[in-house]
């Protein structure tokens, strides 16, 4: 299978994730769509690692997984904190920090 196909699948998943981040209002689902975008980047990185026969791309993909896990932990902590304070769980309503 040519590697270009993997990259096209990666681009498609990235765009689906981007569309989800922009359209959904539930912060939990926005976080899920961010995961989709990060995973699409991972797929591209692994495909390029295969193209060059260099494992640096796979190491980078593992690093992206670490960062994604951190992002999920902090993001879900924020969602739980918002829920505890009885604030509306809606990214369109949470605009207190808007300039």
């Amino acid at each position, binding site marked *: 299978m040519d590697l270009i*196909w993997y990259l096209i699948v990666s681009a498609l998943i990235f765009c689906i994730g981007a569309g989800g981040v922009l359209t959904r209002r539930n912060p939990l689902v926005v976080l899920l769509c961010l995961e989709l975008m990060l995973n699409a980047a991972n797929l591209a990185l692994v495909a390029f690692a295969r193209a060059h026969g260099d494992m640096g791309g796979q190491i980078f993909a593992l690093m992206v997984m670490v960062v994604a896990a951190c992002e999920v932990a902090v993001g879900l902590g924020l969602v739980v904190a918002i829920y505890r304070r009885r604030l509306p769980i809606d990214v369109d309503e949470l605009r207190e920090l808007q300039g």
Partner: protein
Amino acid sequence: MAEVFFFLAAIGAIGGAAGTVMLRDAFYSVLALVTHLIFLAMLFLLLRAEFVAAAQVIVYAGAVMVLYVFVVGYVGGLEAGLAGRSGPALRVISVLFALVLFVELAIALIGTGLEALDSEGAPYVPGFGEPSRIGELFLTDYLVAFEVASLLLLVAAVGAVILARRRTGLADPREVSVTEFMKRDEVTKGEGETGTMIEAGGPRDI
């Protein structure tokens, strides 16, 4: 044979991604993402990234998604209005933006001059993508990144605990803003007109 597996995995991954974005219930979105991650691990296997695929299934589809399921279960069914999406105009613009982004990326990919992309990749070297090689690289060439990642995980874990901890000392969890509290009648009522120094001086009897 690899083609069959590729199309199977690609369709599964794209379907899972679409399900994550489109399903109304956050719980089903999480489940769709789990299927997406498992099919993506299959794509990683086809690219000879065995360790990344294993880490994907164990760390992502296992640990991180369990965290998601717990939070969705804790936060609960959410209000019905939240299940929907933004207004129709914004939705159209967003979908248009995603489509334009995909067209742009596809043009960049198809028009690229990289010859390696029109092949199966570099010749396979035994040991490529195996855990032993990954571990060796992590402890030699990428040692700094490895250590920084451990520090980042520690900071994120502490931060998540602090963010989500139960606050004590406030009778009503809604009372989070001091200024809102000071503005209330029972705090500032009494002597003085509104706008006097007494009002600005803060609570009289708490």
